[in-house]
C-alpha cells in the first residue's frame, strides 16, 4: 500500500493547520473549539490509516520513511526534514492523537466561558502538532524541534491564566510557566550536547540510514563506540556512549520531570485541567521515555548510563509517590503521581524492558488522562474548589464522576484486572526476574504500595466520609465532558489486553523495532503478581480506611494532615517535594538574583551605562563644542585656517622627508 504513504504527512500537518486556522480565522469559542477538535480528530483518522498501511507491510521492513527536503546542508552536517513512521512511532502517535482528540472534545465543555478560547485551542493544536513531530522525526535535530515545540506549548498553556495572580493551591500561573520552561531548558541544554556529541562521534544525527541524503544512521553505529572514550582533560575520561546516555538522561529528567529536575511539574498544574491531562500526564512528559526507547541502541551499549537511568527512575518513583500521599490539592496528588509513574517507565526502559515501558506509557496515558479529566469534572462541579479538605462525601452528589474516578484510581493502583495491573506488574517482574535486581524491584513494589495508598486516601477524602462543605449545586458532567470520560474509563479498564501475558500483542508489534527478547511467563511471575496485587490492595484499603473511617473527622480545611502528628518531618518533607524547591531557591535562584541585581545596578548602570556609554557621549559632545568654537563663520578666520592648513600640510611633508 505504498500509495498511501503520504498520509503520514497529514498526521502532524493537520493539527498545525488547525492551530493556524484557529488563530487566524476562528472568532468565538465555538468556532475555535470545532476547528481544533476537527483537526485533532482528522489527525487521529490519518494515524489509523497510517497504522493500517504499516500493518500491510512485512514486519521486518515495517516503516514508512519520507523526506520532504534537505533541511540543513553544511559540509558533512546534513539534516533532512523527514518523517519516520515505524511501529514505535505508531504507538506514540495513536496515543497522542487518540487521547488528544478526546481531550479536545472534553475541552469544548470545560473551557466554556473562558476569556481566551481561540488562544487555548490554537495552542492545544500546536502542541499536538509539535508532539507528533517529536515522535515522527527521522533525526535528532528535527526531534529537538518538536521537543522545543512541546516545551513552548507547555509554557504557553501553563500560563493560560496569566492574568490571574494566583490559582489553587496558591500558584502564580505566569511564574509556574516560566519555571517549567527554565527547568526544561537545563535538560534541553544537556540533550543538545548529547546531539552534538552524537554527530561529532557517530557522524550523523539520523536514526536510520537516509537514502535521500546519503547519511548513515547513528543507531546502528552506536555499538562500534562501546569502548571509545571522551577525554575530559583533568577530569579523566568517560565512555562516549556513557556520556551521550548521561546527557540524554538529563534531558529526560527535564522533560519527564524526573529527580532532580521534577520540581516544575507540580506547579504546572496551574494550567487548565485538560492541559494537565494531555501535556502533563498523557503525552509530553512521556517524551523522555520515548527518547530512551528510540535510542535503545545507545543505552543497551552503555550499561553505566542505563543503570543511572534505572536508579533515577526507581528513586523518583518512590519519592514522588510518597509526596503524592501527603498532598491535599486534588491536582497536585495527580501531578506527583505522574512523576512517580514516569519513574516506573524510566526505570523500565533503563533495565531494557522497552516493551513493558511502552506498555505502561500507554496504559498510564489512558488512566491518568481519565483521572485528570475526572478531576476536571470535579473542579467544574465544585466551582473551582481543588482542596480535598473541602470535599468529602461526594459519592452521592456525583455518582458518575465517582465511578469513572474509581476506575482510574484502581487502574493506577494496579488492581487486577485493570490496565495498570498488567503494565506495572510487567515492569516489576522484569526487575526481579529478567534484570535480577531485587533492590530496584523492592523499591518499585514499595512505590506500588504507596501508590495504592494515596489513591485510596484520595478517593476516601473526595468521595467518602462526611461532606465537609456543602456543595448542593454540584452535578455530574454531561455532553462533551461526559463521553470522553466513558471512553477513557473503558480504556483504563480493559487497556491491559494490549499486552496480556501469553498474547502480548504490543511486544510482538514492537519486536521488529526494538529487537527485544520476548518476555517469558513463568509460575514465579504469577506468584509475584499475586503478591504485588495483595500489597496494592492492602495499601489501597489502608489509605481508604484511614481517611474514610479513622481520621475522617479530623480533616479540617486549612489544617494539616493528622498523619503529620505521627510522621513529623518525614511527612513535611514529602509534602514539600523533599525540599528541592527550597534548595534551588537558596542555592541558585537567590544568588543568581543577587548577582544580576549587582550586575544590573553597579556594573551596567554605573560602569557601562554611566561611565562608558554616557561618558563617551559626553566626551564627544564636549569635543564638538570645542570644534564649533573654532568654526565662527568669519571669512577672515576661515581663510586663515585655510592657509594654515596649507602650511601644516607642508610641515607634515617636511617631517616625512626629514625622517
Amino acid at each position, binding site marked *: 500500500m505504498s500509495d498511501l504513504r503520504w498520509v503520514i504527512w497529514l498526521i502532524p500537518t493537520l493539527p498545525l493547520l488547525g492551530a493556524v486556522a484557529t488563530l487566524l480565522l476562528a472568532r468565538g469559542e465555538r468556532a475555535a473549539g470545532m476547528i481544533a477538535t476537527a483537526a485533532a480528530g482528522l489527525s487521529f483518522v490519518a494515524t489509523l490509516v497510517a497504522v493500517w498501511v504499516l500493518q500491510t507491510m512485512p514486519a521486518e521492513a515495517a516503516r514508512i520513511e519520507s523526506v520532504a527536503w534537505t533541511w540543513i546542508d553544511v559540509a558533512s552536517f546534513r539534516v533532512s526534514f523527514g518523517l519516520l513512521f515505524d511501529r514505535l512511532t505508531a504507538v506514540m502517535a495513536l496515543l497522542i492523537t487518540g487521547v488528544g482528540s478526546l481531550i479536545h472534545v472534553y475541552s469544548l465543555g470545560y473551557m466554556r466561558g473562558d476569556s481566551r478560547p481561540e488562544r487555548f485551542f490554537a495552542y492545544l493544536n500546536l502542541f499536538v502538532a509539535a508532539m507528533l513531530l517529536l515522535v515522527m522525526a527521522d533525526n535528532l535535530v528535527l526531534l529537538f524541534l518538536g521537543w522545543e515545540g512541546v516545551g513552548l506549548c507547555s509554557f504557553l498553556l501553563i500560563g493560560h491564566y496569566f492574568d490571574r495572580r494566583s490559582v489553587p493551591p496558591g500558584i502564580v500561573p505566569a511564574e509556574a510557566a516560566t519555571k517549567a520552561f527554565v527547568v526544561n531548558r537545563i535538560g534541553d541544554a544537556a540533550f543538545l550536547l548529547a546531539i552534538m556529541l552524537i554527530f561529532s562521534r557517530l557522524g550523523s544525527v539520523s536514526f536510520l540510514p537516509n537514502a535521500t541524503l546519503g547519511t548513515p544512521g547513528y543507531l546502528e553505529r552506536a555499538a562500534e563506540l562501546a569502548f571509545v572514550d571522551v577525554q575530559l582533560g583533568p577530569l579523566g575520561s568517560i565512555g562516549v556512549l556513557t556520556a551521550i546516555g548521561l546527557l540524554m538522561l538529563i534531558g529526560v529528567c527535564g522533560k519527564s520531570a524526573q529527580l532532580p529536575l521534577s520540581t516544575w511539574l507540580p506547579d504546572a498544574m496551574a494550567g487548565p485541567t485538560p492541559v494537565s491531562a494531555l501535556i502533563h500526564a498523557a503525552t509530553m512528559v512521556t517524551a523522555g521515555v520515548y527518547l530512551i526507547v528510540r535510542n535503545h541502541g545507545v543505552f543497551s551499549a552503555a550499561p553505566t548510563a542505563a543503570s543511572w537511568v534505572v536508579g533515577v527512575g526507581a528513586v523518583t518513583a518512590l519519592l514522588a509517590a510518597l509526596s503524592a500521599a501527603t498532598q491535599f490539592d486534588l491536582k497536585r496528588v495527580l501531578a506527583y503521581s505522574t512523576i512517580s509513574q514516569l519513574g516506573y517507565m524510566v526505570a523500565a526502559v533503563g533495565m531494557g524492558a522497552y516493551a513493558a515501558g511502552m506498555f505502561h506509557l500507554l496504559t498510564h496515558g489512558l488512566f491518568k488522562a481519565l483521572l485528570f479529566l475526572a478531576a476536571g469534572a470535579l473542579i467544574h462541579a465544585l466551582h473551582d474548589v481543588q482542596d480535598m479538605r473541602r470535599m468529602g462525601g461526594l459519592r452521592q452528589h456525583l455518582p458518575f464522576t465517582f465511578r469513572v474516578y474509581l476506575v482510574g484510581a484502581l487502574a493506577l493502583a494496579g488492581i487486577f484486572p485493570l490496565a495498570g495491573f498488567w503494565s506495572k506488574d510487567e515492569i516489576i517482574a522484569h526487575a526481579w526476574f529478567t534484570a535480577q535486581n531485587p533492590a530496584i524491584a523492592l523499591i518499585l513494589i514499595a512505590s506500588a504500595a504507596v501508590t495504592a495508598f494515596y489513591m485510596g486516601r484520595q478517593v476516601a477524602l473526595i468521595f467518602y466520609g462526611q461532606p465537609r462543605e456543602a456543595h448542593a449545586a454540584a452535578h455530574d458532567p454531561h455532553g462533551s465532558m461526559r463521553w470522553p470520560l466513558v471512553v477513557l474509563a473503558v480504556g483504563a479498564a480493559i487497556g491491559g489486553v494490549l499486552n496480556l501475558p501469553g498474547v502480548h500483542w504490543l511486544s510482538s508489534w514492537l519486536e521488529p523495532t526494538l529487537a527485544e527478547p520476548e518476555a517469558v511467563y513463568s509460575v514465579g511471575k504469577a506468584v509475584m503478581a499475586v503478591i504485588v496485587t495483595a500489597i496494592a490492595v492492602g495499601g489501597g484499603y489502608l489509605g481508604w480506611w484511614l481517611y474514610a473511617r479513622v481520621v475522617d473527622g479530623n480533616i479540617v480545611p486549612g489544617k494539616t494532615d493528622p498523619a503529620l502528628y505521627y510522621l513529623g518531618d518525614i511527612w513535611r518533607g514529602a509534602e514539600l517535594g523533599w525540599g528541592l524547591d527550597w534548595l534551588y531557591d537558596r542555592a541558585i535562584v537567590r544568588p543568581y538574583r543577587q548577582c544580576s541585581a549587582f550586575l544590573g545596578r553597579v556594573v551596567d548602570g554605573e560602569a557601562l551605562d554611566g561611565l562608558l556609554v554616557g561618558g563617551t557621549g559626553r566626551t*564627544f*559632545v564636549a569635543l*564638538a563644542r570645542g570644534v564649533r568654537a573654532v568654526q565662527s563663520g568669519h571669512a577672515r578666520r*576661515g*581663510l586663515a585656517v585655510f592657509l594654515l*592648513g596649507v602650511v601644516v600640510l607642508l610641515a607634515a611633508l617636511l617631517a616625512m622627508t626629514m625622517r
Partner: protein
Amino acid sequence: MMFQISDVPRLLPELMLAVLALLVLGSDVLERWADDPAARRERGRAAAQLTGIGLGLIWLVTLVQGGLAFTIAPAGAAGPLDALLSLGRNLQAGGAERGALLGAFATDGITVMARLLLIGAALVVALLAGDHLPDAHPAEFFTLLLLATLGMCVMAAAQELIIAFVALECSSIALYVLAGYSARQPAAAEAGMKYLLFGVVSSAVLLYGMSLAYGVTASIGGADGGPPRVNTSFAAIAEAVRVADVAQRGAVMLAVTLMIAGVAYKLALVPFHSWAPDVYQGASPTVAAFLAAASKTAGVFLLVRVLTAAFPDVAGAAGANGFTGWAALLALLALSTLVLGNLAALPQDVTRRLLAYSSISHAGFLALALLPLGGAAPLRDAASAALLYYLVVALIGSLAAFGALAALQAAGVADRLEDLAGLRQRNPLLAAVLTIAIASMAGLPPLAGFTAKFAVFVGAWEAGAAWLVVIALVTTVIALAYYLRVLRPIWMQPADDRPTVSVAPVTAVTLALAALALIALGVLPGPLWQLAQAAVLAR
C-alpha cells in the same frame, strides 16, 4: 593641444552642454516680451523645461556613447528600430579610444562615468529647480548650471594643466554666481561672497602648485643633452617626476601638496572646508544640492586625474610600511576631516548646516577612498571601482537629502531641526526620502551607503591604512548620533499644529526615484559594481 574634426564625437557631451547653455540663454532673450510676474514665471518654466529635456538627452547620449552599461550589436537585419540602433552604433563608434585634443582630454571609462554622474546630477537639480524657480533671471540660472556642469565634465577628463585649470575656473565662477543667486537675501549674498573668497585663495594655491609642476618638466631632456622639453601635460609631468633627482623631488612634493590643497577646497576637506557650512546654508537648497553632489564629485575626479596621471611615482603609502607621498597627505586630510567634520556636526541645530558637515565628513571618506590609487594594479583597480561606487551613492544620497530640504523650503518649512517635527504625518513621502537618504549616508544596511562605505574600507584596509579605517569606523558611530538627531523629530515628535507639506509632482517623483535607487543599490550592489569595474578597466 590641437582641435581636430575627429574630436567632435569624442567631445560630444561637452559640446552639447555648451550648445544647450547658449540655447537656454538665447531662447530666453528672444522671449523677453513682458516683465510681469506671470510672464517671468512662464519664461522660467520654459528655461527649466528646455534644460531638463536637453540634459536628459545629453545624459542618454553619454550613456549610449560610453558603452559601459551595454554595447549595441553590430548591424543585423533591418528592423523597425534599425534607424535608432544605427544612430547608437554610430555614437559608440565615435567614442574613440584615444583621448581627444591630442591626449589632453581623456575619453576613458572614468570620463564616461564622470559625465554620467555630473550630467545626471545637473539633470536632477534642474528638475528640482523647475518647481521652485529663482526670483529673477531664471534662464541665466539654468545657463550657469549648464556651464558649471560643462566645466566639471572637462575637469574630470583633463590630462593637462591648463585645461584642468580653465575647466575648474569655468565651473567655479558659475558656482560663485549660483551660490549668491538670490542676491536680495543677505544669507545668499554672504554665501556667494564667501564662496568667491575661498575659491580665489584656493585657485591661487592651486595655480602655484601647477606652476611648480610645470617647472619640473624642464628637467626632461636636459639630462640627455637635448633642449629642455617643458610641457603642461600630465604625461610629461609624470615622466619628469620619474627622472627627477632628490632636489627636484622636493619641488615635486611641494607641487603635489599645493595642488591637493587647492582641489581640497572643492571637496571641502578639513581644514579647507570653512566655507561649506555657510554656503550650503545660505545658497538656495537646489544650489546646495548641486554643490554637495556635483561639485564635490568633479573635484574628486580632478584629484584622481592629477594624482594618478601626473604623480604616480610619488604616491607613497600611508600604512605600517611607510608614511610618505601623497597617500600620506591624503591620510592626514582624511583623518582631520573625519574627526573634525563629524564632531562639528554633532551640536548643529540647523538641518542644512548639519548636512553640510555630514557632506564634509563624506569628503573624508572620499580622501580615504583615494588613498589606495597609487598602489599596484589589481588593488588599485578595485579601489578605483570602490571610489566610483562611493561617488555614485554619495551623489544620489546628497541629491535626495538636499532635494528633500529644497522641497521643504519651497513649502515654507523653516530650517531648524525642530521644524521637521511630525513630518511623517505632514508629508510621508518626504519623511521617507529624508530617512532613506540619511540612513544611507549613515551607512546602515541594507541601503547603498553601507555597501559603498564597506567597499571603501576594504580598499583602504588592503592598502595598509588599517589605523585610519578604525578611526573612520569610530567616526561613523559618532555620525550616527547626529543623523539620528535629524530622524527623531521626523518620526518621534508630534506634528502639533504644524501644517501639512505639499510637494510638486516632478519633485516628488524625482526624490522617490532617488530613494528607491538607494534601496536598490544597497540590496543589489552587483550591477553598479560591475559598471564601476568596467569603467575602471575601460582605458
